[in-house]
């Protein structure tokens, strides 16, 4: 009897809803019935709301079964799911699932498709072709391609990657470093994790290309400690890639050396900020450094260092392979290419959606997300993590575009989208933002360290109705001070969610007090 390939994700969200148990159930059942299956623990396609999403390969086509519970396994076998049989959980061919079919997959092209631990599978899906081309064409070619692509940092600050790489390439030094920021601390974001769990080798490939382009031989991945599954997958994949000779000394006979170490963070949001991350990599407290010098000039251990986000780096291999222009064909104006948006909060279909810039929040929330999970109207949306502004239901048609968002006092950031329905109390959210800053502040500068604590107190007084007008003025002034005088974006951007909450939702801060509020 031929062996049937069955894919069951080993990705954190899938595992959190029973993927391990499902995989085990399928294996045992197949043993009992004498059917031959090969279970592949792939990554997630990003349709988290369908997890565990089990796929069976039938005649070269993958047939998906969604939200499979361990208890479904017996009936799946009875329905002949190994031959793609009918079953209430059957969704049809994976490629036909509308949530996935309508995306612009670039960085996440292989996520879900491949076995993250297999170099062979990676290569079958064009893995390492970007690296090979880079080695053949030379560093200058890579730097040009990345610049032409218009790629901007996906970690939040959206700085042009090509310019950053050029700066490091031009720096004179005996040693340079490539560091990958995998701290992913923003609540409501998980694209870095999905990428590392689904296609870790594309990150290694991107880092190796970066190293080759700027003249660095050593790379570090700074991974947050809250990602234990990711950590294991990264280490296993690194071993495979080293064994296959794609990392290490004299890679594929090119004379180029490059290797990667994974460092675990220790639970500090601020270590996502690049200079704090470098301090932490050096074994110190994660305190922000003054800039200048830029990390590109004096970064890790004082050497010229590239700091890039996971998705930024994983976007590079295909930019080199297909050409910067091809990437730049996606997107709008200054926001070229694609972004992996992450839908969470009060939303029916949470997950990852990679789309070209220019897509609107409404399309993402309604067409992909299916609206709120509660079925109630959307009242507020926070984009870009805990330091991102709250948008109103009237702002959903603004295209996803760095500049368009800046114009309305908001950020796109790392692409996290958290949806709230009309039961949300925005004063609670504003307080949460200040409290978060107070807890996570590194403590180096006063506006942030003290300001955030005072901010919580002022909001408490406003909500309690104490000298409301006076305290609102005080809050506005405090926000201005934090924005202007903080050393980094932690204190500098906490005013974004606070101010937007006060401005767009004054009724939650006691305006028109005495009127009945619907959202109690």
């Amino acid at each position, binding site marked *: 009897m031929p062996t049937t390939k069955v894919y069951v994700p080993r990705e954190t969200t899938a595992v959190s809803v029973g993927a391990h148990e499902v995989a085990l159930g399928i294996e045992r059942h197949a043993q009992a019935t004498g059917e031959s299956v090969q279970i592949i623990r792939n990554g997630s396609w990003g349709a988290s709301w369908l997890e565990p999403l089990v796929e069976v390969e039938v005649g070269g086509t993958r047939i998906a079964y969604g939200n499979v519970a361990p208890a479904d396994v017996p009936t799946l076998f009875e329905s002949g799911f190994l031959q793609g049989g009918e079953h209430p959980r059957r969704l049809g061919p994976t490629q036909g699932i509308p949530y996935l079919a309508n995306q612009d997959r670039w960085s996440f092209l292989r996520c879900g498709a491949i076995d993250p631990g297999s170099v062979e599978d990676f290569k079958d899906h064009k893995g390492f072709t970007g690296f090979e081309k880079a080695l053949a064409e030379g560093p200058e070619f890579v730097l040009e391609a990345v610049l032409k692509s218009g790629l901007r940092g996906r970690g939040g600050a959206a700085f042009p990657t090509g310019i950053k790489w050029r700066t490091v390439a031009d720096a004179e030094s005996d040693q340079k470093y490539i560091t990958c920021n995998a701290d992913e601390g923003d609540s*409501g*974001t998980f694209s870095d994790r999905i990428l590392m769990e689904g296609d870790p080798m594309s990150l290694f490939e991107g880092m190796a290309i970066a190293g080759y382009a700027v003249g660095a031989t050593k790379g570090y991945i700074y991974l*947050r400690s*809250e990602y234990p599954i990711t950590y294991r997958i990264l280490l296993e994949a690194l071993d495979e890639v080293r064994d296959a000779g794609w990392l290490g000394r004299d890679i594929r006979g090119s004379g180029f050396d490059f290797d990667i170490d994974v460092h675990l963070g*220790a*639970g500090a949001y601020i270590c996502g900020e690049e200079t704090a991350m470098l301090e*932490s990599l050096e*074994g110190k407290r994660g305190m922000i450094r003054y800039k200048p010098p830029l990390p590109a000039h004096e970064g890790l251990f004082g050497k010229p260092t590239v700091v890039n986000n996971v998705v930024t780096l994983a976007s590079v291999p295909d930019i080199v392979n297909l050409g910067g222009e091809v990437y730049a064909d996606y997107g709008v104006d200054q926001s070229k290419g694609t972004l992996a948006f992450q839908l969470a*909060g009060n939303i029916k279909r949470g997950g990852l959606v990679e789309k070209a810039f220019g897509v609107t929040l409404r399309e993402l929330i309604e067409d992909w997300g299916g609206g709120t999970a509660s079925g109630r109207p959307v009242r507020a949306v926070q984009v870009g993590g805990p330091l991102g502004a709250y948008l109103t239901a009237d702002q959903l048609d603004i295209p996803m575009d760095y500049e368009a968002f800046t114009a309305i006092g908001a950020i796109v950031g790392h692409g996290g989208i958290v949806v709230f329905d009309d039961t949300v109390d925005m004063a609670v959210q504003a307080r949460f933002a200040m409290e978060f800053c107070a807890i996570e502040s590194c403590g180096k500068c006063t506006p942030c360290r003290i300001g955030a604590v005072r901010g919580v107190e002022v909001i408490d007084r406003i909500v309690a109705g104490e000298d409301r007008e006076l305290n609102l003025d005080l809050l506005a002034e405090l926000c201005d001070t934090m924005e202007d005088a903080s050393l980094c974006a932690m204190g500098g951007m906490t005013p974004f969610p606070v101010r937007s909450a006060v401005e767009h939702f004054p009724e939650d801060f006691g305006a028109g007090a005495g009127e009945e509020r619907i959202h109690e």
Partner: protein
Amino acid sequence: MSQRQEVAVSTAQNAESLDLSPAMGIVEEMSPVTSGDIIPLLQRIQDAYGYLPPEAVLSVCEETGLPASKVFGVATFYSQFGMEPKGKHTVRCCKGTACHVRGGNRVLDTVEKTLGIRDGETTKDMRFTQETVACLGACALAPVMVMDNTYYGKMTPRRTELLLKEILKEES
């Protein structure tokens, strides 16, 4: 009593009872230990003891020559490190925005009620420690809870209670 005195007293009290060999073994394995290794070093010590016993950390400082001020500075900066003994199990509930809107508070309340402890506390019988986290990165299936590195998505108060009671029952 000042905090420093307290540490000193508890250090003296535990000095005889604490087995330092795991910590020394880690130092030996990682040797030569430089200041760049402080975080992985502390992570391994914490893995071995379940927490960072101050006396173990002090001995490691002596052994390696790393300044205690520096090592304790790092240990107190990061929320992952704790100098108090932890329970056999650690329950971590997500307090991030995405979990909050999906009823994360109710899961947290259930943990607190079932175990009778609050954020950062450990049950008297040393079986459970409870912590809150700003985001566990599984936000699409909120609310999320983690028990000893096992993720639970789409958590409900009911499932939380069942899970905790199952562990309590199995182990009693």
